[in-house]
């Protein structure tokens, strides 16, 4: 599992790219990925193109990001999910909390 970040749109958006299994082992790294960016961008995008699997603790980490990004006012997108990842997100009805493409 690796996590890479890129800042896009003149510092307005942070793209976090996940590769491999997104599970509890990513906890620390995922948090650092968004907490270390100063100043905090207005929008976040989690790119799952390379993510093979997510578990419920990863869902928890996404909730933490959403909370960090402003809770109900957060602008967090989750993009490029494979069908397995998409299914996990749908069962938990995370469409209600995130913009999922």
């Amino acid at each position: 599992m690796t996590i890479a970040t890129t800042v896009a749109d003149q510092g307005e958006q942070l793209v976090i790219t996940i590769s491999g299994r997104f599970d509890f082992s990513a906890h620390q790294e995922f948090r650092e990925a968004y907490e270390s960016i100063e100043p905090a961008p207005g929008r976040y995008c989690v790119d799952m193109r390379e993510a093979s699997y997510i578990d419920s603790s990863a869902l928890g980490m996404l909730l933490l990001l959403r909370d960090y990004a402003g809770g109900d006012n957060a602008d967090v997108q989750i993009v490029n999910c494979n069908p397995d990842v998409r299914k996990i997100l749908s069962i938990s009805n995370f469409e209600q909390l995130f913009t999922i493409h």
Partner: protein
Amino acid sequence: MADPIRVLVADDNDVDRMLLTTIVRKEGYEVQEAVDGFDALRKFVEHRPQMVLLDAMMPGLDGFEVARRIKEQAGEEFVPIIFLTSLTAADELARCLDAGGDDFLSKPYNKVILKAKLNALHRMRTLHVTMQEQRDEISRHHAHLIQEQEAAKAVFDNVAHTGGLDVPFVRYLISPLAIFNGDVLVAARNPAGDLYVLLGDFTGHGLTAAIGAMPLAEIFYGMTQKGFTPGEILREANRKLLGILPKGYFCCALMLVFNFHKGTVEFWNGGLPPAVLMRARGHDLLHLTSSHLPLGIVSEERFDASTRVLEMAAGDRLLMCTDGIIEARDARGQAFGFERFDQIIGAAAADSPFDRLKQAVYRHMGASGRDDDLTLVEITMVTPEQLGRDAAPVEPERPAGSEDWQLSYELGPRSLRASNPLPLLQHIVMEVPQLRSHASAIYTVLAELYSNALEHGVMGLDSSLKASASGFSDYYQARARALEALDGFVRFEFACQIDGSRGSLRIRVRDSGPGFDHAARIRELSLEPRGTAYFGRGLRLLNNLCHSLEYRGCGNEVEVVFAWSDEADGAIERRAAR
């Protein structure tokens, strides 16, 4: 200053032995001498030296055999052995180490090398002792932790017990990954006898899950027994979990309410795999999919507790599991998956797929172990007759209660939309000691009267919609829409009169609706064979449970009476005594 290290020097050659003893003693070690193999073993047992210098060639028992026996004696303790030898061939020296020696020293002795080897082996020994002490401490801590967890688990099991599931029509499997299980399964009957089941899966295992599960179970049991609706219980559970769980932790949950009289199941799924409804007749599988966020994520304002109701005939089965089953992996990392789950249920025809599912999951995982909690539940719908009259909580003592009282309670539109008056009204009626053993019948009657007044009276919904299975779900959708827009009232009037050994409770319910042709309706019902229609079951039920039932005026007012006498052994007198 610590005690000096004890060293055993075993050599049958007196000169060599004395020489060696002198050198070792000068280094500050305490020396025991042994003159041959047997003597060495004796001295080892007697003095328990911490290091041994051993001549390889001794008469009787040679050094190799002595080394083997010393190592055996020492057990877990690390006793370094240095072989003293005049042998020089590589394979002979190797033999020393094979026999359990840790090093060797060639004769004639080099003092500097001897000292260095003694010190090096002493350091190794100290390291070994430290490691063992740490290992022992860890295992002591571990044992302590296990003991504490077992005690905590006993508390946990008392709170989140599965007592309500020990009935013949429910089968379940709960297989904990750790002592504490991330899964929660609780079940209880509400005052009307409906079976409430809550299956939950907390993120993570162990303590966090168990800490969240306890209030969840308490809310579930407390509110179910008081007669709250599933929506109200879910709201409270969500509120509580949101408050106590750390951010990022939540609970996927499936709540089910089985009404055996009406033959329905009401459900709410927030984040659990779809429960599967298999019909006793027909092969179609119906999925009760998740359409809500799990518990403990969003605030009260955003939480959606709306449920769906499905018709469920006797013999229909409902299967539910947590994602531990779906994600159970085989040796190659392949998940069990939804498809396999459905396939096995589909292939079961009318039989119970429970055992086959369980075996298939275990077979799938093989020896690869389990990486989540496995919980599987099967509930088969039964008729009220099969269910048997449930032994309502027995209240042997009869403390004095109110004897003559009246109460009027009117709910306006906002209360009708947002609140459920049943727990409060049930509580008031239970103030009458003679009625306590009939809690179930009374709750059922209150619930029927209220839903008739609200749904057909105030909201004007047509119950004949429920005549087909598809209309059945239309009905509940229409109900949700009408509730948003409703205007009107429902008024309850209670009058209780107790006169010595006899007494009665009269409940009158009036609604703001236009009423209905009750005379015609009751005639119709008396012609239909029992249980063939989807609607009208409520009215029949009422008729069977109370002493009398009477519609008044244009049909927007109904009165039921419960009457009892102590001569009848506390039994409620029923007009239609079946």
